């Protein structure tokens, strides 16, 4: 029957192509059970007060302050000691955030380093060797080192486990990597990448993968902008030619790349599931304002569609808020995948409605010039309506297509029988491509 929570992923069972979207099994949660003793809300508040007393955030750069905050274990309180955490309960993170905002401190910029903070850090903390954690987490946290994710390939999108980028080890020395990655946001700014590569093509697809942390400044890494339908380039193609990675920059065991990548992708899903915005904060607000301000554009059919869209957007907003409340209460549910599907569909519907309502204005476009842009949809009002319509087409593809997410729900929540598969037991090199 319908279950309230997703399964934890189990690498011993038949491999699946989708990460679980329930964060509760993250290896990063281990310290919660082990070391939460003695660190309660009062303890956190005391540590925040000590930090602010010793390092006045209003008198130093945010990078400098964030470094001190990391050293005090207040970056991610649920991470282990020495990794920017205290081994405390994840629920106490909110206490830190609000206390520091009250103290006038700048918080870590998820806007600047979203991949690193959202997905890199949990993966490093869970699977990185001690030396790697010491090396990588602090500059990631402060934003001095930006991270990107080298997963998708031209031949491996939804079927990520079919990827072809090869990593071959030279004796007991370095790994040498060759291949092409695509849809890599922030590759042009990144110092580090999470790389998933094939280390054994003779094994079935999920079993021959290994996970690395790649220095993006290494020789043989070439980053090219990838122009998209909007004209701009948010993403990149990354070409890897004889790139050398020391074995010490491997995450997890050889052949365990799929399990490690699940930590990354699971956190991606959580990150995208996001908090609730304000009413009419999204594209529906722009359409509603146009409806209010321009009576001459109104027609009965569009009115019906506008009201339907308004209802769906508001319900989706409440759904996101409910997810946030569940997380805050320590009882995360599997609704994140559903929220992401809903957001994609609604943003597409609403931006199309926007163009139809705009009429002649919808015929224009502001700028097709190829230029780099920040990750994600531009701020509302910054671009012409046509831009938002086109950009929304990516919503149901990026971060897991809506079709893959439906499979996640079918598998993990509804526990429906899997589709029969032909690709999980044969050697990767024998798969048709």
């Amino acid at each position, binding site marked *: 029957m319908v279950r309230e929570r997703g399964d934890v992923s189990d690498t011993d069972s038949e491999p699946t192509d989708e990460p679980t979207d329930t964060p509760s099994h993250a290896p990063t949660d281990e310290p919660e059970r082990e070391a939460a003793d003695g660190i309660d809300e009062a303890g956190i508040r005391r540590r925040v007060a000590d930090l602010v007393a010793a390092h006045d955030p209003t008198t130093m750069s945010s990078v400098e302050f964030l470094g001190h905050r990391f050293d005090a274990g207040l970056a991610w309180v649920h991470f282990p000691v020495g990794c920017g955490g205290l081994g405390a309960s994840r629920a106490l993170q909110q206490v830190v955030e609000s206390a520091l905002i009250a103290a006038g401190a700048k918080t870590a910029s998820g806007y600047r380093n979203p991949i690193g903070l959202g997905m890199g850090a949990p993966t490093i903390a869970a699977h990185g060797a001690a030396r790697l954690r010491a090396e990588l987490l602090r500059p990631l946290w402060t934003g001095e080192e930006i991270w990107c994710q080298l997963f998708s390939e031209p031949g491996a999108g939804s079927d990520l486990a079919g990827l072809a980028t090869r990593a071959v080890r030279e004796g007991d020395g370095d790994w040498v990597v060759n291949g092409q990655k695509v849809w890599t946001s922030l590759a042009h700014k990144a110092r580090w990448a999470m790389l998933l590569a094939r280390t054994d093509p003779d094994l079935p697809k999920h079993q021959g993968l290994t996970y690395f942390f790649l220095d993006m400044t290494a020789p043989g890494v070439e980053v090219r902008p990838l122009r998209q339908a909007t004209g701009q380039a948010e993403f990149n193609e990354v070409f890897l030619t004889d790139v050398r990675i020391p074995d010490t920059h491997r995450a997890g065991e050889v052949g365990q790349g799929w399990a490690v990548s699940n930590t990354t992708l699971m956190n991606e899903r959580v990150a995208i599931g996001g908090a609730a915005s304000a*009413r009419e904060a999204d594209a529906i607000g722009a359409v509603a304002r146009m409806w209010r301000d321009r009576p001459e554009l*109104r027609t009965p059919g*569009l009115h019906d569609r506008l*009201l339907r869209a308004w209802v769906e957007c508001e319900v*989706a907003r409440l759904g996101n808020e409910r997810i946030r409340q569940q997380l805050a209460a320590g009882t995360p549910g599997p609704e994140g995948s559903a929220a992401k599907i809903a957001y994609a569909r609604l943003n597409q519907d609403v931006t199309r409605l926007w163009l139809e309502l705009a009429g002649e204005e919808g015929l224009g476009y502001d700028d097709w010039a190829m230029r780099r842009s920040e990750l994600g949809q531009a701020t509302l009002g910054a671009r012409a309506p046509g831009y938002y319509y086109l950009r929304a087409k990516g919503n149901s593809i990026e971060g897991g297509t809506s079709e893959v997410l439906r499979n996640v729900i079918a598998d993990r929540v*509804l526990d429906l029988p899997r589709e029969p598969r032909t690709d999980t037991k044969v050697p990767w090199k024998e798969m048709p491509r």
Partner: protein
Amino acid sequence: MSEPRIPSLLYGEVEEDLRAALREVLRDRCGWHEVLARIDTEEAYDDGLWKAVAAELGLAGLLIPEEFGGAGVGAREVAVALEELGRAVAPVPFLASAVLATSALLACPAGEARDAALRVLADGSRTATLAVTATTWPGAGFPLSVTGARDADGLLLTGAVTGVLAADRAELLVVPVVVAGEAQLALVAGDAAHLARRAVTSLDPTRPVGELTLDQVRGRVVAGPEHAEAALGHALRQGAALLASEQLGVAEQALAEAVAYLKVRHQFGRPIGSFQALRHRAADLWSDIAAARAAARYAAACLAEDAADAAVATALAQAYCGEVAVRAAEECVQMHGGVGFTWEHPAHLYLKRAMASALLLGTADRHRATLGTLVDLPPAI
């Protein structure tokens, strides 16, 4: 636009306790076989079940303050009860009596007749209904179908109301009546002289509607012109907002039945739940139900807190949850294939409840129109 604070959309401990207790009773006494058997009889309502949940579990008095013998909890708890009653398609007059009629009386000024009625409703010894056509939506004009004339002993009511929930079952009727051009609410005994009550064959046999014909029927005024319209509006809004939770329960049960069947039914050598065409539809339904839960919880929470956004929350929940329930029930039929279309299978119970509920207290389209007014999205001229 101003930003209403979003209250908790989760379930509290009291609510979960209530759910567990009610679910146990319904599991023991209200399996779908029992519901299915009952609709072939003349007794639409399961009075034994109603006594068990209304009086023994105290559902009838959830909204009624303790001073009248009720539990004095609130809309959140009522919503959870409705989820469970919806899940079971329980043939009990909870919505009519414990929600609609009770809410109307609670919005009437204190008085001997009203207070006495609340007491007998709270202990479950009597059942009431709101004598309006059940499709009436919050914000509709005051019904004009019953008029009243004063005499030396009080009020005599004359008129007819069709499509009334629990019309032939309720021992007390809260009747909107127009007296000398002014709106009032009157309390009428179900067995009053010159009152004719008739059940009609209904789309939802687990919650039939009926007709009331009043020919100089004696009633007592419980709300005069200064209170009547507001009290009726309050009852209709409470009913609409909380009906969303019942629709949520129906939708969940329909999906659960469908999913269970997708796992066991084999065709083409595979469980049919392994076909992506069906997996994706089931996943979409689950997503819509998750969203419906947020909408229904928001409506219940806004009522419970008497929030400024209550009218928006009500229209929103009704514009969304009814359609989700209908879609879930329709998919339940379709995913079962042939057996889902038979009388012996419960799918049609969910379908009939879902579809009839979608018409109750205003269709989704009515509520969208209400929202258009509330959030300043006026129609094209």
